[in-house]
């Protein structure tokens, strides 16, 4: 009994900041509670979920979020892996390189978003300046003004910020692989690709799972970059689920429906994470 008492502070803290808000959000998603009904708590059963299914703005934001997540995480993963493989080869100065590469990850996202906003500015932007000087463009492009270029701009900013995260996790994974496995393969006359295919990749799998899970969850809930760079525009073309949930909860003060959006999103994400788990972890179980 005495031993368990030590858990009480942690338990209280987790309950207060995590379990209670989560349960309350879940409960609220079945209620009407908004500025529109004078903040009277009324049980609505599945009303909010029915509304959600018919909500074209929610569907549009899901598509935007899904697209953003798939594209940005794929690019981030490939770049992060290549960087990790490259840096793992460095024996000297590895600490310096590692730290330098981590800098973008440590900066606050909202500030990064403001900076990238100026980089993509049509009149003052560095990007247009570079492209015009190198002869790729003749006249400046208003990157954040078009639906597709705005999405590309946000993805680029996100890749810049989060490649270091994937990189550092995969690098940790690489450094954990026993060197004698490579030596054994070398004795059998294996080349670089075989080493990667039969040792590096399977041994890296737990780290692949961790980095992908974290990145997918974070990308799916992206808010600050979008909110600052485009506000969800133009015409809602970059509005993600989090931005929509924020608008509904904080600006429209529709707490019931806003909670429903959040709950539905969490359920979706949990499904994706479980799918990923089934796909990667189960297959390489013995390595975890």
């Amino acid at each position: 009994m005495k031993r368990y008492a030590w858990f009480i502070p942690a338990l209280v803290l987790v309950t207060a900041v995590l379990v209670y808000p989560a349960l309350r959000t879940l409960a609220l998603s079945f209620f009407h509670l908004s500025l529109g009904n004078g903040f009277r708590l009324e049980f609505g059963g599945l009303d909010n979920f029915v509304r959600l299914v018919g909500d074209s703005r929610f569907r549009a934001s899901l598509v935007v979020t899904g697209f953003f997540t798939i594209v940005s995480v794929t690019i981030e993963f490939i770049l992060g892996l290549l960087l990790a493989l490259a840096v793992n080869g460095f024996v000297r100065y590895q600490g310096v390189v590692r730290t330098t590469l981590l800098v973008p990850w440590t900066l606050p996202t909202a500030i990064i978003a403001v900076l990238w906003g100026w980089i993509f500015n049509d009149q003052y932007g560095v990007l247009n300046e570079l492209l015009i000087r190198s002869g790729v463009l003749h006249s400046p492009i208003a990157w954040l003004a078009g639906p597709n270029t705005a999405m590309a701009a946000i993805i680029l900013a996100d890749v810049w910020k989060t490649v270091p995260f994937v990189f550092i996790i995969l690098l940790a994974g690489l450094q954990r692989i026993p060197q004698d496995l490579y030596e054994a393969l070398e004795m059998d006359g294996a080349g670089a690709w075989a080493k990667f295919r039969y040792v590096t990749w399977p041994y890296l799998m737990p780290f692949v799972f961790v980095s992908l899970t974290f990145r997918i969850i974070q990308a799916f809930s992206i808010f600050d970059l979008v909110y600052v760079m485009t506000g969800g525009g133009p015409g809602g073309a970059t509005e993600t689920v989090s931005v929509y949930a924020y608008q509904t909860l904080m600006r429209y003060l529709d707490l019931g429906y806003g909670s429903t959006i959040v709950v539905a999103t969490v359920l979706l994400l949990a499904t994706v994470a479980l799918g990923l788990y089934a796909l990667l972890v189960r297959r390489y179980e013995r390595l975890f």
Partner: protein
Amino acid sequence: MEPDGSGTWSDVIQRFNDLHPDARIRMVEGPPATNTREDMYSTAFLSQSGGYDVVFCDVVWVPKFAAAGWLLDLSDRLPAADRQDFLDEDLKAGSYRGRLYRVPAFTDAGVLYYRKDLVADSPATFDDLKKFSERFKDEKRWGFLWQGKQYEGLVTNFLEVLWGYGGDWIDAETKEVFLDRPEALLALQFVKSTIGTISPPGVTTYSEEESRNLFQDGRAVFLRNWLYVWALTAREDSPVKGRVGLVPMVHAPGKTNRATLGGWGFAISRFTSNPETAWKFVEFITRPDQLQYIHERLGRVPARKSLVPPEFEPILRAARPRPAIPEYAQASDILQRWLSAALSDRVSPEFALREAARETRLLVGP
């Protein structure tokens, strides 16, 4: 409160505390983004706790906060003499359903700045705006700058053009929606026609500062912005110092010009444990001498007739508030999204306005 970099607000609060030793007003500084401060207040109010006693309140928050029952009714507290002196539109904008919830402190309004060294007569109509823009724009200089990013500023820009064509958005009393009327289409077509011709293609990504920087660097003939730009263009290090004039937004022939009203004031939380002290403070900080002091330090324009600088009078006479409905944030979002979709060529202007009108009716309709 907003960030108090210059210490001006602290000075005023200190003076109040010195006069009332039994009352201690403490300032809580928030972030500079106004919608983040709106969220801070909303969060405190939703928990029904004390949190803040006095609210430094943006003009567009009033209907929402008042409808939610979060603000004290101040109608009977404000003396008649003050009621006379405060700008009528600012008082109206501080009211909800005929009751006053916010005492005005500073007013603001949309302004059309122009380069008076280029444009000899002050522009009056949309045609003037186009004509002078075409005439004086060159490789280094654009014609007309405005704020076209999908955010609240886009609505204020559009409203001024809409009103200038004799149109309107929502009637707060009757809940009528006018967005699918011909005037609205003319307004949207005008705004859209500026993009890439007299306005830079990126104008649909600008908020206030992007457009002000270009104008202040001498790279545009016209700029639609707020009153704060006036003091900045007049600074010693400003390339356009002494070469800027200001008028309210231009209009269609036979119509009148209108400016979107902005501005800040003070309200009192319904959850305060100290309404008397809170009121004494609101009364104190909105006194002419205090407002004048803040005006001199921060450039804010006092919302009192007796203190408005003469050069701003024509603008403020043209100022009109946005519709005072509790669902304002949603109505504004509907308009922002459809305007932005039309301006970025995702849908036609006709379709955008028809859809915006339909969604707005669903929102505010009976």
